[in-house]
């Protein structure tokens, strides 16, 4: 090693784990580290600790909803549900089902309690218009934390995609997700965004490169806006 820096503050294994978790290794070095993760629990734990340290950085990467066919391909790639698994297979299946049913019941109960505790929340709507055209109509369901966006007069652009932004009272746009010209898109609204979606907030649509803005702010032209109002 040509550098004079003293690495003694971290043992070699710990440095290798950090390099692997960060992703700077290549070729044989990366392959060797990967194999070590699989067979050396101590090393795997060091890697996991580094992943834990670095993971919060991913909060800076905007969420991008993948196209629906990705899930279809995943479902298709899973092993076929075995018929020959017999009792064990069906036990696991029924156990899974009762788990799911239990979770559903718990979720319903929680929803009822939640609803009971809230004063009635009205959905919010926004007609997103620009240049004299009504481009999209958005409905926010704050209870479920979703925003459904129906395309109206918006016509697709071959090179750019429409991205939805929520602009609350502070005037700072928050990315919500990508829209489609050809069908309704339902996006999830994280709790902190849902809390900002009030009567004084504005929804805006900008045109972005495929995949959406990577800066967290609109990079392309804002083509339409609409104020949120209670139904």
């Amino acid at each position: 090693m040509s550098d004079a820096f003293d690495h003694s503050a971290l043992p070699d294994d710990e440095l290798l784990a950090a390099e692997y978790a960060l992703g700077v290794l290549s070729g044989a070095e990366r392959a060797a580290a990967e194999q070590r993760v699989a067979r050396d629990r101590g090393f795997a734990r060091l890697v996991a600790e580094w992943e834990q340290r670095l993971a919060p950085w991913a909060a800076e990467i905007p969420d991008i909803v993948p196209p629906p066919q990705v899930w279809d391909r995943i479902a298709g790639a899973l092993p076929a549900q075995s018929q020959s698994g017999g009792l064990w297979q069906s036990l696991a299946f029924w156990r899974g089902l009762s788990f799911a049913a239990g979770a559903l019941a718990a979720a319903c109960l929680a929803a009822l309690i939640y609803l009971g505790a809230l004063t009635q929340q009205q959905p919010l709507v926004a007609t997103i218009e620009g240049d004299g055209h009504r481009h999209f109509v958005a409905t926010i369901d704050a209870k479920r934390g979703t925003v459904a966006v129906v395309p109206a007069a918006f016509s697709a652009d071959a090179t750019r995609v429409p991205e939805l932004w929520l602009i609350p009272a502070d005037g700072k746009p928050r990315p919500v997700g990508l829209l489609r010209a050809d069908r309704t898109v339902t996006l999830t609204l994280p709790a902190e965004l849902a809390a900002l979606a009030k009567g004084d907030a504005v929804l805006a649509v900008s045109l972005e490169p495929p995949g959406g803005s990577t800066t967290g702010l609109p990079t392309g032209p804002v083509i339409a806006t609409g104020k949120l109002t209670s139904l």
Partner: protein
Amino acid sequence: MDLDANRSLIAAALGRIPAGDRTALQTVYRLTSAKLFGVCLRILGERGEAEDVLQEVYVTVWRKAADFDASRASPMTWLIAIARNRSIDRLRASRLSRNMTPIDEAGEIADGTATADRALEGLQDHARLHGCLDGLAKHERTALRGAFFDGNTYEELAARMTVPLGTMKSWIRRAMIKLKACLEQ
């Protein structure tokens, strides 16, 4: 949805996958795919490739869910690590053009602090990491960013920042040592 509740939902769904529960995988996908697709797309820079890798990621989750230990790790950390590793493997194996835009200290990639308000449970973790990153020298932070967000190797980072390979290794290692010490305070 409350972010802690989200975290428990993901962890609980991961726990049901080893029994062969496909709806559990679908739940994990519904709650996390937008974040993980963002991660894959950021590293790969190409939508088709990112979709392929995202598929690999969830098939890996299906196969390896039994390895996830909710008492030791956060589910998002575990999932993000899989998404980054699969994306980096794909990047290394392919001829995809990497982000090799020269970077120097003046041209530090725009700081993303303002966008860090979504999806991950660890807002405090993020603030803490950011505080520690701010304590690094600017060239160290820039090199770490290139590795984390662009999937660059030591060699690529050395080329982007026009320094010898040994210098780059030294920068990154020194940065990691400082980062660990700061995060443990």
